[in-house]
């Protein structure tokens, strides 16, 4: 099912931004990423959902920043030189996703994408749309909407 959603874009090849969250190598369609930003001064929001790391100033807009490690349940992403924020448009706003690092951009054939197992390295499969097996690595393709929808 997951792979078929990707196919429905009508292209046989998709461009992916590859990033890491903890030990997990993840990827997201390039089309979903508006920009990749270095970590910005973060303001904590008390009483916010646990996965919300805080808010940052993105050129005058207040952007909610979600910690993908926290969202995956694998623990908060430690902030260091390599920490990045993936800026993802979501409805009328932009949302930031904190990841450990951004690795690469790669192209993948949709046909190579396999369905998601029920969990990947202990992270629930509901956050993923499929996995891609390269020679020595497993790349989990995230489902951005599932990540951002806190109700589901």
């Amino acid at each position, binding site marked *: 099912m997951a792979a078929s959603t990707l196919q429905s874009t009508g292209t046989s090849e998709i461009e992916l931004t590859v990033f890491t969250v903890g030990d997990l190598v993840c990827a997201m369609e390039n089309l979903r990423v508006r920009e990749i930003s270095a970590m910005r*001064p973060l*303001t*904590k929001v*008390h*009483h916010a959902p646990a996965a919300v790391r805080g808010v940052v*100033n993105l050129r005058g807009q*207040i952007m909610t920043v979600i910690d993908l490690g926290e969202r995956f349940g694998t623990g908060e992403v430690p902030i260091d030189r390599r920490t990045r924020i993936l800026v993802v448009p979501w409805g009328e706003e932009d*949302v930031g996703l904190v990841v450990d690092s951004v690795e690469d951009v790669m192209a993948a054939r949709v046909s190579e994408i396999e369905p998601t197992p029920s969990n990947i390295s202990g992270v629930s499969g509901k956050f993923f749309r499929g996995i891609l097996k390269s020679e020595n690595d497993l790349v989990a393709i995230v489902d951005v909407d599932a990540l*951002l929808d806190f109700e589901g």
Partner: protein
Amino acid sequence: MAVSENDETLQLFLEEAREHLQDIETDLLEIERNADSPGGELVNKVFRGIHSIKGAAGFFGLTRMKDLAHGMENLLNRMRNAEVRAERAVVEALLRAADLLNSMVEAPEASEQIEIASALSMLKSVAPESAAAADRPKVKLMDKASRPVFDLSPSDLESACKGGKSLYLLTFDLVQDVEARGKSPLDLLRDLEKTGLIVESTVRVDRDGLIEGSPQLLPFQILYATVLDEDMTVLLTGLSPENIRKVDPATFDSGKSAPGSGRPAATKGKRARKKSAEPLREPLPEPPMETAPRETTMTESVAIPDAPLSESRSAGILPGGAAAANTLRVNVKVLDRLMTLAGELVLARNQLVQKVSAKNHSEIQTSSQGLSMIISELQEAVMSTRMQPLSIVFGKYHRVVRDMAGALGKDIRLEVDGEDVELDKTVIESIGDPLTHLVRNAVDHGVEANSRKRVEAGKPATATIRLNAFHEAGKVVVEVSDDGRGIDTDLVKAKALERRLVEPAALDRMSEKEIIDLIFLPGFSTASQVTDISGRGVGMDVVKTNFTRLGGVIEIESRRGEGSVFRVKLPLTLAIIPSLLVSVEDETFAIPQVNLVELVRIPARDVRNRIERIGDALVMRLRGRLLPLIRLSDALGMGPHRFQHPETGEWMIDKRERLEDRRGPVDRETRQESARRTHSDRRFHSASAINVAVLSAGAFQYGLIVDRLHESEEIVVKPLGRHLAGTTCYAGATILGDGRVSLILDVMGLSRQLSLRDVGSGEKTREEERNSSRGRDTQSLLLFEVAEGERFAVPLALVSRLEVVPRNAVERPGGRRAMQYRGGSLPLLDLADVAKVGPVADVESWYVVVFAVAGREVGLLASQIVDIAEVSDEVDEQTFRQDGILGSAIVGGSTTLLVDLWGVVRSCLPGWIPDRPAAGGGGERPPILVVDDSPFYRGQISTFLTEVGYEVVQAEDGSKGLEALEARKDIGLVLTDIEMPVMDGLEFVRRIRASERLRGLPVVAVTSLSGEDAQLRGRLAGVDQYMVKLDREKIVSAVETFVAHGRT
């Protein structure tokens, strides 16, 4: 032709219809007021509005809407012609129809299902046309193939031709003549309306309607009445002459008696009114099409425009057309973007100014000042695009006042002033409801029910309600005033007491203004006060909250007999607000200045005196009143996990007690808390002073404890993302000069956080809440300490005096303590002699609480007198019950033990209290009914009485009491509390006095309510005597007296 609903054209039409309808109410009411000078410009205006709605509705295939508009138009037309007077019923019918039209416009997709028959018949019946006129059959305009194009009533035709207008049948092609020119059909209609009247319009899409041979054409036919001649009509419409056909109304009569068939159209129109027109046969020139040769009427001069025409064209606006539009619709999103940019500029300026002033280069400074000014102006200009006039809000009140006054039979005039004052869109949109409430209140409660009363008071019979708006000190003031009866402070007082919103004693100290402000208290206006007219169950507290949310302030001025003014001060905008920046640890927050009352800094040495703990909450003494305190770090749950108690989850209590700990003894602290306190106190460390921002959240105020108070700044409010929608503590965020995001605190949301936590933290808090907010039956208690840290209380009413005795002046005759007192010796008792409590502390001098038992005085030693507090009678009689202690209550945040004075004396000085054997005294001892809702007091009083040999029957409220009196007819005396649920003591006594059988029963009220007022009310109800609760001696002796002598 049904046009898809998301069609832009339809949206445009709906928007325009809304605009027409917006003023219609006001206009109609104005017309009604000027009913004696009919046919004014206003009627015309309403007519035009409705007319254009009708035209466009027809175009969109919204037939119900069209028919309704048509019905209104007819009536309006007759008003215009002074055939119908703008009487109440007429205006009423029009208003109803306008309401219906409004709802259709709001939901066009459902409009075809809306029932309009009754509205239509109302429109017809309010001013019935003469039979002849009504019976006139409709006229059909046919095309050459005898297909009806338009159905018209003769009167429509007549009115269309009024004023020398000619009728034209215009045929536009929607594709070529409209769309290809970049216009919408609506633009077209609008243009045409400027110079004439659209009588009817239709689009033919049915197969038959398609012009033969040219199926791709979409003919849009308009019957148009104008004073323009054919040439100018050609120019105006841009149609080729063959698509314009002049229609002679005379031809409608199809030759039947047409003596004036050659006369101008206008005259024909007039004539037509007098006779009965009939459907016309083949009367019209065929509908225009392709290149068919034009008929007679059009042949004359298709040619060159003459001078006046070119003038009017060069002016760009046609003669008689609407004034050039000086308003412009701007998408709110565009404005928001502009606002964001302007905000960004402001921030950039702030940064620049900061940096530059540090470097001190005068030239850079000059230019940065210039920049600063430009930005301020830009900001203002952008903001002004969001400004809207108050007339949008004020407009609807004419109707509100009229309808309500009508329903209430009051004669009220509404005066409106300052409707052109502008406020931010957001503010305008949100003040409607609370203002409506104020207006309704003024009509319902403000203005006297009877105009005779007004005349007697020397006021005009017609009451005036005034809406006024004006600028003052950078804010907009909106006033709703009436010249009615004013607020009756006595009624307010009575109601506040009845609803237990305020203590009688507190009431006595209040100024008139403070009393009036009581109506803002939650719970002041409740169901019993709700009338159909104004109530709707919304209290003034909600009104106040609504205004507060907008950053507004409301105040009342009222003089009895003269009227009231409700004055609301509103900010111009909500997008940029002055705020105070505060911080806790390294986090900075903004508090909107409008919510800020004052800043209080409590020096470390005063913390102990100024800050108290009540239950689990902190309060601060501020000029004689107690202000609830909340620590921002607590409210936001900053670093909560470390403090949370694993079993009870009571980490909040832990944290809060720390502040209060400074008051208490060290051993208590260690005993209760050290186990849980594993961290150092970050926020109140090292005897630091405490900063409190006193905030007002709607009807109540609280203090927010923060680490540091910073400067005030104008901040740009920005929204938070959707993931944070559930966090009620924030009103948004802003960007500070250093580029960091700072959250704006929602003062009301935070206060809710506080109360949420109160509910969560257990029994004591609930009790406490009841104490403070509901103001139940309360009792004045004297609070004192014996051993340090242990609180005791005795009812103040039982205390005769307080004395101070130096420790070395206390004698110890016979192993007992005593002091020289008024020439005698006063025995001094230490509670520790009786109860398992700490012995009186070793201080320089003791306080002596003097009270009387068995006709003699005795003193109780205390190390410290703490306070006198009003406490509810929620007493826990289980937990701490022991000899000398009646029970416990939470007072001022501490568990306080209630001293059993009588019990103390009995065990320390047994000889003082005469033994009264049960059933002693020889006389008959009837059973006694004790009625009190507090189990504690009921139990106490019962004990007093059973100890001296009475049988006691208990009941928890008046109605239960009555039942008991029914069940036990031998009851000889009633002791009752006054403040009780279900049936209070006063009512209970009234019932007793009203009963034949019970009338002679002695009733003693045991109460904690003091004051002559309360006693008087009791006596009026039939109470024989007042007693203070817990005054065992007096109660017992009163009972004895009444039992012996009955009612006196």
